């Protein structure tokens, strides 16, 4: 018998052997493990909702209602506690309402940096958008020393694209950065592909980021407190090489 024929024969024998093992024949009895596994309940899914302990706190009376058509589930108010200063945990919670709460939590300086939420996936966006975001973030951070959870921004942008991908087009050129005041980015952290791990959602996420930042701008302009600019810092050129910032 040729080697190829022997291999095919062995493959067939193996598959038959698997079938017989499933029926409890053979040296190793998997039934015991099967019985033990059956005693392990399934994890709780996110559909089970948010516990008071895990929920982020309500922002404050100054937070306006969101008018975004893609706004999140309306159960946020029922799920959150109202104690100022309560930190956002990294535990699983119902996705949509908690993410929008997270964004505004940070804007009002209540989210805790370095939580599990701060390690989320960042989408890959086109190079011009990436450079713009990096420049704006750098300018604002230098002037205000405040940052927004990267994960909250990127997760929300990715969620919007996933929910309605046709609503977003690839970002064109350097448009959106100039439209948004620097104050909006008082707490904006590096929304570029400097973060890891990466998950490629494509350039549509750039559009979603712009929409989200417009939402943030609207929120702030509606009355949420904005940090003061201490010193007017000159803009400096930055560039990105393979996702790493390099000096000009």
């Amino acid at each position, binding site marked *: 018998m040729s*080697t190829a024929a022997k*291999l095919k024969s*062995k*493959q067939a024998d*193996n*598959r038959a052997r*698997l079938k017989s*093992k*499933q029926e409890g024949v*053979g*040296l*190793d009895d*998997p*039934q015991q*493990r*099967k019985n*033990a*596994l*059956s005693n*392990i*309940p*399934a*994890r*709780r*899914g*996110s*559909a089970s909702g948010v516990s008071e302990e895990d929920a982020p706190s309500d922002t404050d009376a100054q937070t306006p209602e969101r008018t975004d058509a893609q706004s999140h589930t309306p159960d946020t108010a029922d799920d959150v506690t109202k104690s100022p200063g309560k930190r956002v945990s*990294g*535990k*699983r*919670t119902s*996705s*949509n309402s*908690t*993410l929008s709460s*997270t964004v505004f939590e940070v804007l009002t300086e209540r989210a805790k940096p*370095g939580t*599990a*939420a*701060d*390690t*989320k*996936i960042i989408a890959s966006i086109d190079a011009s958008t990436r450079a713009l975001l990096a420049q704006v973030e750098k300018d604002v951070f230098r002037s205000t020393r405040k940052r927004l959870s990267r*994960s909250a921004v990127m*997760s*929300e942008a*990715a*969620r919007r694209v*996933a929910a309605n991908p046709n609503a977003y087009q690839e970002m064109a050129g350097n448009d959106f950065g100039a439209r948004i005041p620097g104050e909006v980015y008082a707490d904006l952290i590096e929304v570029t592909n400097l973060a*890891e*791990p*990466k*998950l490629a959602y494509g350039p549509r996420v750039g559009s979603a980021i712009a929409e989200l930042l417009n939402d943030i701008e609207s929120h702030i302009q509606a009355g949420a407190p904005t940090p003061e600019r201490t010193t007017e810092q000159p803009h400096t050129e930055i560039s990105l090489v393979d996702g790493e910032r390099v000096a000009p």
Partner: protein
Amino acid sequence: MPTLTFTSEKGGVGKTTTSVNVAGSLAAAGHSVLVVDLDPQGNATQLFGVERDDSTIGTAQLLDPAKPAALSEAVVVGVRDRIDLIPAVRTPLNSVAQALVPEMGSETFLREALSPAKDLYDWIICDTPPNTGLLTVNAIVASDAVVAISKYDQWSAEGATTVEGLVGKCRRIGVTDIEFLGILFNQVEDKLILTGLVADDIDSIGTSVLTTRISSRAKIGQANYAGMPVCDFAPNSDSALEYQAVVNEITERLSERRIDLTTRTTAGAAK
């Protein structure tokens, strides 16, 4: 009961082959092993002869944020002697990977799901897709130790060093306490000039490298085709011996890092 992940950002370096053959060597030594297939390609699933169709419940359903399946539904018991498998099916797993993105803390879902299984198995081995997305992060966060797989070429080596950085990131942010054991070089052909060049490059970076290497041999591919670990296909082959050496070295490195290697077998013997 250690959980181990074999991973690389680069495809085609031998993550699945390594996962399957390490699992086989452990099982041959009398340990019970759970293999978790997190690669939507489902090569480990296919190798073990499990159907990859819409009716198969596996990793995707286990990680489903809305309605996660129970382990008893997801685990296929007895794919080989002492080896069970959580299978991967492409379409549902890709869908779940996307669904996980907006879920806060979703990098810990696999760890939560496997936690009750750590008492049932001596070893848990995770096979990952060739990227550093959420499925790979879930595997790393669920693991006690990670081994990066590489061939002796510059892109594979780069993919392997990316893994070290990723593990470091997870540790720095406190999501997990996990060891990077080093790079395991696979499909090695010493006679090639490139082998020496890449080895020098890795030396200069200072990344840890496993002493054991897996040579490029026909028996490994043949064993994959036959649907079994090489230690079952050709127990006396050089490849089978090399994978046993990999197991020995990994065990030693885990022990040095004081990762609990108590298995149900040894725990039972101690009593």
